[in-house]
């Protein structure tokens, strides 16, 4: 038992926010009289928050280097406007249009990255300028007006579901199957890595905890897919999000590039003297942010089924908040993709739950601000306790 408490103590930062998220969900589930977890609302939660989560993934990398990107909201709008011009005005085929749009996002990110990495202009300033530049260009391109409608397939990215009319007892069969397949893959991969660690004779979680953890996640996966199945099935954007989370978790946790980003954020000078190409890393972090902003831009455009000059306003702040709530450190070097997703969900559930309750937008802002502050205080507190021990 002592082992267990000490385990939780040393991992409280990691799991604290997950537990907080569970509590927030439970709270709203009860207080909204069960509306929060109604199949339609769960689907809505996914659709509403997808773009902030996509932005959060890219933002996390910027924050791990010890900086932020303020331009993403404007880039989202800009990319939406460009894609509208390409696909609505110029009638370029959808595939080519999407490809060009993503390329433009990458170029916008590279533009920031160039000034940040090679001219050594502080990222705050570069992306603040980018925020103004691309918001301005959006208005120039759209001449202050809204462009619509997009092709059906673009709409589907944001609002569509995996097609298929196969039902199991009134539930969408594909969603159920995906849930089960994902669960099996997850269990197998966890057991596999545990076995490998044992082979090397490394420390592993106590078996009871391991089982509890796996069970909890399997239940969560299946609850989600079950709920989605009871409505329209799996949203396409959820697949997109899942793939991005998987890829970026892999990059940050398992590859040399990821390790270099964390080292750079932890101590740039030491990283450079250890052979990390710090300028290159900085450049690609910001280029990547532009790329992910372009994906988010397409999702937003598809969701609104229009490109509007005001799209993406304040998205950068939501993305940054998601990272910090998810345990990233403002001074760099610390933070995980999964944490950011949890942080983003905390915000998303708060938004959604308060909306159901009819809390006015002004109060929603205030409460979100307080949650951000509280989360970071909690983080700082546990950190100082950990080091003083």
């Amino acid at each position, binding site marked *: 038992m002592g082992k267990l408490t000490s385990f939780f103590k040393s991992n409280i930062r990691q799991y604290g926010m997950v537990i907080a998220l569970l509590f927030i969900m439970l709270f709203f589930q009860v207080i909204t009289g069960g509306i929060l977890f109604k199949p339609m609302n769960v689907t809505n939660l996914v659709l509403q928050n997808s773009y902030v989560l996509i932005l959060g993934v890219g933002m996390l990398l910027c924050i791990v280097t010890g900086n932020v990107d303020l331009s993403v909201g404007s880039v989202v709008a800009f990319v939406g406007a460009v894609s509208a011009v390409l696909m609505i005005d110029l009638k370029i085929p959808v595939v080519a249009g999407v490809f060009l749009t993503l390329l433009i996002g990458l170029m916008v990110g590279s533009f920031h990255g160039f000034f940040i990495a090679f001219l050594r202009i502080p990222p705050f300033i570069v992306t603040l300028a980018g925020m103004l530049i691309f918001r301005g260009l959006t208005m120039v391109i759209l001449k202050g007006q809204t462009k619509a409608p997009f092709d059906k397939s673009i709409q589907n990215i944001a609002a569509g579901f995996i097609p298929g009319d196969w039902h199991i007892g009134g539930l969408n069969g594909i969603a159920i199957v995906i849930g089960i397949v994902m669960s099996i893959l997850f269990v197998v991969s966890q057991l596999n890595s545990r076995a490998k660690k044992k082979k*090397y004779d490394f420390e592993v979680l106590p078996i009871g905890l391991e089982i509890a953890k796996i069970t909890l996640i399997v239940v969560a996966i299946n609850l989600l897919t079950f709920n989605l199945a009871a409505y329209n099935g799996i949203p396409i954007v959820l697949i997109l999000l899942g793939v991005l989370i998987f890829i970026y978790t892999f990059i940050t946790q*398992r590859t*040399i*590039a990821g*390790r270099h980003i964390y080292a750079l954020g932890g101590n740039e000078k*030491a*990283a*450079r*003297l250890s052979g990390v190409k710090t300028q290159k890393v900085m450049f690609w972090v910001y280029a990547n942010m532009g790329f992910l902003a372009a994906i988010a831009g397409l999702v937003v455009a598809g969701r609104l089924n229009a490109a509007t000059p005001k799209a993406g306003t304040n998205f950068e702040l939501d993305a940054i908040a998601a990272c910090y709530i998810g345990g990233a450190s403002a001074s760099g070097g610390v933070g995980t993709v999964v944490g950011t997703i949890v942080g983003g969900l905390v915000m998303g559930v708060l938004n959604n739950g308060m909306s159901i309750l009819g809390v006015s937008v002004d109060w929603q802002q205030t409460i979100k601000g307080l949650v951000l502050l509280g989360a970071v205080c909690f983080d700082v507190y546990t950190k100082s306790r950990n080091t003083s021990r």
Partner: protein
Amino acid sequence: MAEIILEMKEITKNFTGVRALDRVSLTVFDDEIHALVGENGAGKSTLMKVLSGVYPHGSYEGTIYFKGKECQFRDIRDSEHMGIVIIHQELALIPYLSIAENIFLGNEQAKNGVINWDETVAKAKQILKKVGLDENPNTLIADIGVGKQQLVEIAKALSKNVQLLILDEPTAALNDEESNKLLDLLVELKGHGITSILISHKLNEITKVADSVTVIRDGRVIETLQNDKRSLDEDRIIKSMVGREIVDRFPKRSVEIGEEVFRVEGLTVHDPNNEDRQVIKNVSFNVRKGEVVGFAGLMGAGRTEIAMSIFGKSYGIHHRGKIIKNGRELRINTVPEAIEHGIAYVTEDRKNYGLVLIDDIRTNVSLASLKSVSTFTVIDENRETQIANEYRDKLKIKCASLSQKVENLSGGNQQKVVLGKWIMANPDILILDEPTRGIDVGAKYEIYTIINKLAAEGKAILMISSEMPELLGMCDRIYVITEGQIVGELSRHEASQEAIMKKIIEHQKLSRQRISA
């Protein structure tokens, strides 16, 4: 006989595991210039930090009497209040404030919180006259040279009604003309009743202006020499500074030294902040297989700059010269290229340049050689952990687990993590910059043992150290470096502390003559 202004009695100061000062007593008389000499790390700066309240009362043992009264300073403000002002080696001036603003920083000429600028400037002018600095008080600090900045520091001290002025290496960054001016000023201030304690490595300056000289070695006072008749000579001081038997503090090494593996020819590098200044001037040296070669010299001699220039041009601009390994000239422009060619550099400043403090031991150890534990850039964490574990055992890193953050390790263990990182990179040439700085005696011995093992494995080792006994105990050959040049090469049996010091001082004399000629 003049009166005693300061008496420090039986001062003992411990850092975790290290005794920095051991029952040190120091007596300074009124109206004298009292010099404090000793090698780097002997305890001079620590003693002065105790005196000025940087280390507050209670963090050391012993008593301090200033003007006959016992003092228990809690911080610098306390000591300044009594008229004790310390001027550190790194100047504490704000570059983008004016001279006048800097002089009265923290001591603003204000009424109810509103600064009276006329009075500030007028008073600043008076004080500047006293120190002989002919500058407009509104000039920014950034726009005047280091020599003048030093005078502003003294002016700042005078504005606080200083009675005892402590100067830590005030002339280290100055040229001879500026140094002379500064020393003349100290003599003049003495005439106005201001006592000074002068810490310096430049013995010629000390014999010129100091009235008495206290020698500190290994945290103990060796002796206090009188120089009121200016009859003290430098050799006498050197003897006292270094005169010690070297006991068996260094593990033995019996390694067959092989052929030359590494050679640097005519390396010249310019200051990145001042293009015209050559920091490294035409430096050539070589290292052989299994050999430990030392770089001796005082702080600021340019040893670190040489090492970092070789290591992927990490320092300086306009590099010239050749780097040759195994007879082939290397083109190295970046750190990754240097690592690729088997060169590793263990920094002197492990916290700022060596470690990612917030990361754990495993990721720090593997940082420079991630390629070797990954396939297609995907890291095999299990193999990484296994290798990190090996280094932990080999280097005897004391830690709770590999996932312990390095910021929570002791200095010696942190140093071992840095060493582990570079040993894992498997270099042929290992440059160690102050490998034992700030770590305790036991850890030092372990690090020496590691160095010997590496030499026995056939690595060529270049060791920079300010602790001469360490160089003498560990190196097969020693290059003496001063002012960015190699001024001597000593084999193991030629090398002694006196010989090294002499080379440095000879060079200083020579360059002085050249300037005056």
